[in-house]
């Protein structure tokens, strides 16, 4: 006898846990402990004296430490409950956070970084006792140099913006060394390049000239030529940009920038669609950077700490952050080579991050590249591009959705779509659609600001998702769009199945109210 099977629902039935969990400080119970420490033995105290005899008076606290007092089990429950209120990368079809390359990060890589051999290392240990990890970082540098075509790579920064900053600092140091820093005060970028490019350049004191796209999705070469001159320090550009459109004139862009004595810097934070297919140096770029936490295994953003890799051509090697890891011949060393830290680099921009960077991220990237090999890297790019164009065809079939710019052309690894037509017809906007997607257990993101594409959403399928998963995401999008037409209030009132209904973020949008630092908060509110 077989039991009748219920028909599969057209959309996933999902409901997230909701715990109404207080802050951990509100859970504190006086005297409760996770680990009970025994009192010191009288003989020990008699020998050493009290703590006040051991700890200098100037280092002793004057008030008790304000930590929550909780038993281990309650701590565990607290954090597991919070974890259940997340929409994490490990359990949703996470293609909705385009530009972030939310791909599968093999769990074996997590096991590698949790081995005591690595976990228990201290970054300040004598290099002679950390030869293994130095070798991994050195070999990873060689791999990234090969992938980019550049000469050397620094992995000292903890993220993409840090790596962009390192590149901008090296650009500035290069022009200073040539006596042209006072003259070259402008950096050129594009509106679709990641905003950290403009931000890093401004932080370094440059004026930023932003180019806007033509109908084909990338700026006109004449616009670039009008922007550059002897005042130009560099071009900071992404390709493909967030639209997923590849600029086929990129070599002409680089040549134009070089013709005025400026440097060309390639933002390859997201290199997932071009791995093994194009190389920054082959297109003439002088510098580039990778986000090791996007393209190379480690989850992006809140999924874990990041890692930035700044890659440079030969003429910029003297300006790399120090120390750099060098491999030297040493007959007495194991395998006849030794890895040393070279800090004697007078033209270096200095230390730009602690120690060797975020080592767990570097080890994941190393393991990921080694596991795939050169052909595997290219497979990643090709599958990511195919998946993206499959999703493109599915999304364009949804009434009300569009992909502005370069009509009819294929995209590389992601697409910035628009709901403008649907919005004009229904009044339902991209944020509301995104929140409704969460009701089906799927993450969704709109766009960086400013919104060049109206009512934007950005999908990046990567190589990690199956056709069935891509279909499920697109079918859910189509269903939500249909809901917007038939019952806009239903979509506008979402979410219904998630732990938090609506987070008020007006304060975060109002410069008169937010403060991004405690110092700023005190200044703003006169504290």
């Amino acid at each position, binding site marked *: 006898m077989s039991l009748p099977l219920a028909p599969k629902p057209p959309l996933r039935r999902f409901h997230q846990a909701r715990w109404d969990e207080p802050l951990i400080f509100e859970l504190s119970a006086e005297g409760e402990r996770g680990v009970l420490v025994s009192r010191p033995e009288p003989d020990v105290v008699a020998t050493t004296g009290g703590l006040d005899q051991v700890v200098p008076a100037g280092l002793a606290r004057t008030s008790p430490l304000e930590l929550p007092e909780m038993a281990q089990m309650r701590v565990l429950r607290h954090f597991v409950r919070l974890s259940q209120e997340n929409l994490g990368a490990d359990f949703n079809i996470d293609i909705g956070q385009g530009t972030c390359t939310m791909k599968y990060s093999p769990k074996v890589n997590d096991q590698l970084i949790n081995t005591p051999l690595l976990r228990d290392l201290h970054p300040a240990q004598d290099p002679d006792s950390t030869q293994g990890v130095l070798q991994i970082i050195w070999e990873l540098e060689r791999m990234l140099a090969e992938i980019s075509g550049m000469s050397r790579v620094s992995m000292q920064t903890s993220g993409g913006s840090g790596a962009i900053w390192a590149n901008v600092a090296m650009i500035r140091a290069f022009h200073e060394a040539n006596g042209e820093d006072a003259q070259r005060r402008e950096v050129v970028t594009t*509106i679709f390049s990641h905003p950290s490019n*403009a931000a890093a350049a*401004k932080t370094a*004191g*440059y*004026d*930023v*000239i*932003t*180019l*806007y796209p033509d109908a084909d999705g990338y700026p006109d070469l*004449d*616009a670039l030529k*009008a*922007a550059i001159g002897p005042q130009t320090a560099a071009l900071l550009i992404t390709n493909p940009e967030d639209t997923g459109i590849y600029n086929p004139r990129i070599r002409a862009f680089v040549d134009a920038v070089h013709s005025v004595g400026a440097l060309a810097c390639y933002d390859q934070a997201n290199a997932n669609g071009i791995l093994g297919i194009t190389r920054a140096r082959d297109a003439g770029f002088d510098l580039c950077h990778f986000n090791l936490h996007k393209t190379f295994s480690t989850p992006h953003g809140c999924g874990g700490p990041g890692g930035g890799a700044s890659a440079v051509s030969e003429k910029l090697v003297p300006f790399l952050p120090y120390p750099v890891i060098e491999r030297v011949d040493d007959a007495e060393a194991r395998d006849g080579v030794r890895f040393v830290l070279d800090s004697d680099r007078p033209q270096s921009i200095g230390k730009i991050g602690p120690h060797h960077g975020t080592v767990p991220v570097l080890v994941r990237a190393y393991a990921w590249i080694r596991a795939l090999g050169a052909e595997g890297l290219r497979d990643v790019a090709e599958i990511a591009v195919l998946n993206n164009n499959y999703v493109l065809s599915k999304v364009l079939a949804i009434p009300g959705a569009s992909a502005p710019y370069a009509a009819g052309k294929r995209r590389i690894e992601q697409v910035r779509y628009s709901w403008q037509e649907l*919005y*004009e*017809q*229904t*009044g*339902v*906007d*991209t*944020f509301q659609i995104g929140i409704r997607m969460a009701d089906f257990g799927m993450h969704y993101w709109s766009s960086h*600001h*400013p*919104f*060049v594409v*109206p*009512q934007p959403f950005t999908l990046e399928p990567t190589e990690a998702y199956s056709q069935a998963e891509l279909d499920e995401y697109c079918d859910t999008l189509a269903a939500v769009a249909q809901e917007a037409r038939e019952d*806009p*209030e239903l979509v*506008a009132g979402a979410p219904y199945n998630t732990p938090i209904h609506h987070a*008020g973020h*007006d304060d975060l*949008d*109002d*410069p*008169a109210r937010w403060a991004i630092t405690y110092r700023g908060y005190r200044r703003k509110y006169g504290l």
Partner: protein
Amino acid sequence: MTLSGGAIGLVINPIAGIGGAAGLKGSDGAEVQELARSRGGAEHAVERTVRALRRLPEGTVVLTAAGAMGADACAAVAGLRVEVCYQPGSPSTADDTASAVAALARQGVALILFAGGDGTARDVLRGLPQPPPVELAETDPPPVELVGTHAAASGLDRLDQRTAVTIGTTGGLDELDRRALASPILGIPCGVKMYSGVFAVSPAAAGAIAAAVVQGGEVTIEDRDVVDISEQQIRAGIVEATLFGTAPTPVVRGRTQSRKAPTGASEADAVRGVAAGLATRLLPGHTYFLGPGGTMAALASELGVVKTPLGVDVIRDRHLLLADASATELLGFTHESPCHAVVTSIGGQGFLLGRGNQQFSAAVLQALADPPLLVGATTGKLLGLDGPLLIDTGDDDLDAALAGHQRVTTGVQDIALVRAVPASAERKDRP
């Protein structure tokens, strides 16, 4: 300032948009309306308004005018509590729109929804209450003359006095106070021309914003331009945009026409950023002619001087040398020191020169030092343009000389490169 809760006011221009389908570029004037009907044009403002009203929650109080100016549309939507507070004439006129708005404003509605186009927006502006006289402290800067001869010559003397007073007396009236004087307005797009920034992008979006107000959601308001274009000239192939004033408008991300930065608050901050960026580019000893517009007012504020709302003011080394200068007076300054014009684009069409700032005559522009123009605009404003920036000085050769890739200051250390073209080259592509 944010809105929260209350009744909705509603005014419909029943014949708005009738000329659109008839290919008449607008619907202003009885003659044009008759011609539109003869060509098959039909009223659709009531039907579009119904689409907006359907987004309001049940039980919403709607104050409106009788018949086709509001009550008819309300009757087609179940669940509204409708109160008629104005009786228009028959047939209703533009003055009825202004009078109905005045009546609604007196009732203290939280939001005035109006259905129409730019012409209707002007009538709505006319009907909004004017602020009480501003009393300036002795230490405050002297009030500037409100509407000068140049404004009269360019048709700007029709500017609503409320706006002129409020912009021109920065020392006397707090920005939030003056915003509180008028009910916010929001347009349900029904007209042929809708270049003003006071329209929602669609009837459904207008209804969604109004619903957010009724339900007590926080909705930011900001002053948006009310501009209009002479329909007769459009029919003749000439685009003449005129700024008639500004009106407080609720702004919900993506729901108010204009693809600007995410919220009104951040947009206002962006304008301040543009002003701060422009201020860093002013050279000691050089003379700057500040054109009209809110961005230039922000620059003046950044420099610590009072700006004539719609005139051109002359500034050197952070001192106001002359307010509301004429072309002849501007020309006089060009003999004293290097001079530059500081301008922003007007409305959504991107005019840098030739609209609302005709004081920058060809003779003045030719006498300017290099670079002749300093341009400032928010990124949102640039993204809202339908095409390139436009130049129309009346001198084709000068237009061509000023055309090209224009540097536009969008913030501190921030410049956008945007193409500027002679307006004559663009007219053929415009409505």
